[in-house]
């Protein structure tokens, strides 16, 4: 999915470029589907938690810990059925399927990368992580270390792609901005112009 660019200018000396390949949900149907997706994720997460507790009932969730009376839970109709169901499968397989479901529940499904430019201060690149559990990977480059910002081309897989790179003083490799989404040339040119204007052009 091609990336889309979002520009934010909270102040004249600050600009943030965000490239995201998340699907655009403009129609009401897409919004309803998105809400359903969130509900499904929540439900799946709940299921995994319940199955996990059932699996570990002999180890942790045995006695009455004063909060929930576990023997009562396990002896109830629903509880005993659940125990039968979980026990009928190999515990290892259950654990693996649970892990997979957890990954799917927290998987982001899209990449969002941004470039934040603050005049006189520096720029910060960030790449969203693959899951909702970890934070974005960021890199800050102070103005004094920025030698230049360039657009160049490189071979990637079976293609030649444009990329925006920051040349940092004292580093052998350039820092690629938007390394995963690699947006189209038009977007890169917009970002390149905008960031250079913000960094170097005193009038804007």
């Amino acid at each position, binding site marked *: 999915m*091609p990336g889309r660019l979002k520009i934010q200018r909270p102040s004249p000396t600050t600009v943030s470029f965000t490239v995201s390949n998340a699907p655009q949900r403009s129609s009401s149907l897409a919004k309803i589907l998105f809400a359903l997706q969130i509900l499904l994720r929540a439900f799946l997460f709940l299921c995994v938690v319940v199955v996990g507790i059932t699996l570990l009932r002999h180890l942790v969730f045995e006695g009455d810990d004063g909060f929930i009376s576990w023997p009562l839970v396990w002896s109830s109709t629903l509880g005993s059925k659940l125990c039968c169901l979980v026990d009928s499968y190999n515990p290892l397989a259950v654990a693996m399927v649970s892990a997979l479901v957890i990954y799917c529940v927290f998987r982001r499904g899209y990449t969002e990368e941004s470039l934040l430019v603050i005049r006189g201060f520096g720029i910060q690149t960030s790449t969203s992580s693959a899951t909702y559990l970890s934070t974005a990977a960021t890199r800050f480059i102070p103005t004094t270390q920025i030698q230049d910002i360039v657009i*160049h*081309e*490189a*071979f990637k897989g*079976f*293609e*030649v*792609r*444009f990329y925006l790179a920051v040349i940092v003083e004292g580093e052998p490799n350039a820092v690629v901005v938007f390394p995963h989404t690699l947006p*189209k*040339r038009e977007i890169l040119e917009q970002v390149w112009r905008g960031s250079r204007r913000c960094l170097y052009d005193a009038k804007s």
Partner: protein
Amino acid sequence: MPYNIASVLPLHKSRSLANKLLVWSVTSSFLNQVRCLVFEFHLTKLTLLGGIESHIYQLSSKLIDRGHKVIVITHAYKGRTGVRYLTNGLKIYHVPFFVIYRETTFPTVFSFFPIFRNIVIRENIDIVHGHASLSSFCGEAILHARTMGLRTVFTDHSLFGFADAASILTNKLLKFTLSDVDHAICVSHTCKENTVLRASLDPLMVSVIPNAVVAENFCPLSHTTTRAPDQALSSPTDPPMSPRIIGPDDPITIVVISRLFYNKGTDLLIASIPRILASNPNTRFIIAGSGPKAIDLEQMLERNVLQDKVELLGSVRHEEVRDVMVRGDIYLHPSLTEAFGTVIVEAASCGLYVVCTRVGGIPEVLPQHMTTFAKPEEDDIVLATSKAIAALRSNKVRTDRFHDQVKMMYSWRDVAARTERVYEGIIGDISPEEFYGYYPGQGWDASGDRVRSFALVDRLKRYYGCGVWAGKLFCLCVVIDFLIYVFLEMWFPRANIDIARSWPRKPPARKSLDNQ
């Protein structure tokens, strides 16, 4: 009309096969025809594939000057990979490949296609121009370009024999490359004859465009650089500069610059040096170059104790060649096979009298008064060199005029203009009658089958004629290539490929170039 041209070239000219070449000896001189052709040609746009780097660089710069856009596609090698720009906005794609051993790449019949298609689309290429024949890279690029519906040109820089196994294989490969090409360019008429025979081509589809030299880089010592260029052009009518007088006892220096390989005639050189030195006192040799025959050469020097008369320089870089050449009076070129022989043009441009073997395209290169020809055998080389020394001693040869004469004969601008006409012809900017010639009442039509259609059936027909088994194999390759193309169009749609920006350039100075 400006064109976008992609040049494809292999960076490493393979010499392994060249060692097994047959000697090509063709005696007729085509020089006069070559000179006539010079001003008949014009140019369009192209893609170059292949390996003669300086040829491509010079040709590309001149094509860019004429308003075309040229990109070069070549292999990546150590320290050079990715996309680079040269002066003038010449863009070079060093395509990375899976390297098996040293610089040898895996034969990538189809794996090159996706990236080639991507480059061609993003650069809006109209013509693909392949260089050199030994590289499978070039053949592949031409095959893919035809599958994509582009016009193709192929330039052959080498001569080949017909008899040994390696040649037969190479010739089949060449036939595969040339079966579907729109036009071929050879560097000399001998080379054209060779290519037409090897690839069973229609001779009208092969043009001869020689190489050129940058004459400014090969000035003789006496040449005053302060002279204005327009003066230099009209120099034959100028009051002659006082020529250097060589007395009967003055030393004569003979320069040899070549890689020391069998096909460059190093064995002939080794055999004739002692005899030349024995029969001509006050003669010295300067030999530059390296190669497997260097040891034989050194052994000969030690056996005959000639170290004080023969100076071995080892390999010299191309920019140092002129400095070596101007130290001599005669350039000896004992090559056994040569498609064109740019080096003898460089030598003549430096004001050296040239002694060369009458092989390949060499007789076409320089006019009679600049050269002495020899048969590629020891006795004749000794004889010809002695004749040349005698001619210089008698001050009959005006070597001081050679530079300006060579400058008039060879220029890259001219090569570019002639190449441009080939492009115009295959693109259809000039009519087939004008391009291939119009011969009414001859019972055949010059434009007949020469405009190559892109229909798959027509292409398969052309490939099928390549041989009993080879024809079927080639057809299979073409069909697979076509299927891959269809697949690529679905998997990597054209719409998703970013179009690269062209190098910003000044308006082409084409009119003033044509007027000159």
